[in-house]
């Protein structure tokens, strides 16, 4: 069995890793965390066993890099909102985006992680549990509680906006 060229990892898993980073720490820091993740992965890649679960490995690195960025941000003197200053040109889309990132940022970290790893990166609950601790059943509940809270918050934001 041959190890695929690293470019294949970037094209296959890059989007999922970006979604995970963005859900964990917001769109502003997500790009740094993404590139930290892939630089670290590129460095370690030759030593990775050929039969390793590549996406699980990348998500694990992304989790570590996202936590590093969240810590660095919390140490900064002036708190900045985790939302890009200039983004999409469509005001309605932007408003919905801001609500979305604010909503996910307000979730407890375990729920945020469970939603990101399971729903955005497609990791099974057994793997999610390994990443966040606890049982697969607890990981499943964290993900579904997280989704339920997001659904409620975003539904009420839509009503407020009308």
């Amino acid at each position, binding site marked *: 069995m041959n190890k*695929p060229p690293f470019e294949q990892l970037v094209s296959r898993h890059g989007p999922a890793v970006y979604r995970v980073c963005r859900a964990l720490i917001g769109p502003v820091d997500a790009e740094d965390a993404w590139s930290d993740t892939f630089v670290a992965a590129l460095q370690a*890649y030759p030593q990775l066993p050929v039969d390793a679960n590549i996406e699980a490995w990348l998500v694990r690195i992304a989790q570590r890099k996202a936590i590093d960025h969240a810590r660095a941000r919390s140490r900064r003197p002036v708190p900045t909102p985790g939302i890009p200053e200039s983004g999409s040109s469509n005001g309605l889309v932007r408003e919905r985006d801001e609500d979305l990132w604010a909503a996910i940022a307000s979730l407890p970290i375990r729920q945020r992680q469970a939603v990101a790893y399971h*729903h*955005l990166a497609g990791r099974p609950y057994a793997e999610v549990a390994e990443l966040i601790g606890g049982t697969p059943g607890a990981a499943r509940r964290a993900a579904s509680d997280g989704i339920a809270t997001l*659904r409620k918050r975003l539904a009420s934001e839509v009503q407020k906006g009308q």
Partner: protein
Amino acid sequence: MMEYDRVVADLAEIDPPTLTRLHQRLEQRAERRDLLDVAFRTVDSPVGPLLIAATREGLVRVAYEREGMDAVLQTLASTISPRVLAAPRRLDDAAFQLDEYFAGRRRVFDVPLDLRLAAGFRRLVLAELTGIPYGSTRSYTQVAAGTGHPRAVRAVGSACASNPLPLVVPCHRVLRSDGSLGGYLGGVQIKRTLLQLEAAAAAQ
């Protein structure tokens, strides 16, 4: 359920420029950290898309579409290093010179070459091929004689067929002794096109 799907879809949405930007930053950082063992890109040409790849030492691979881009990248990953990344910058010179070549404005390639994919006798054949001037041809027999192994005509043919750097190391300038084209790793039609291009440019 619909709102659930909407939430996940919104969390998953990425605009394509974001992915382009992320990839470019990865290329830059990989280069700075000296992690770019093999950089590659594709270039368009009159003989179809070409994949070109370079190590730190130099251009290591030129491949025609019919060789299968994925297969070529997999071979580079297996034989050189799995740290293979689409990173066009290292290949700017090579891409530019290929453009000039196809426009009839370049006769000799001037980029560092990494010949590690050709060992032993094959390497000897590549050195011999490099000496065939633009616009002229040799026979497999002549090339074999040039290497000092006059009976190794078939081995010269197979070295040409597995040339890791076609175009740049001009195996297309080698014909059968009877003047017929012989084979070509990019397909015999491409060989004909290249010889016509060189004959026309050399006549001017």
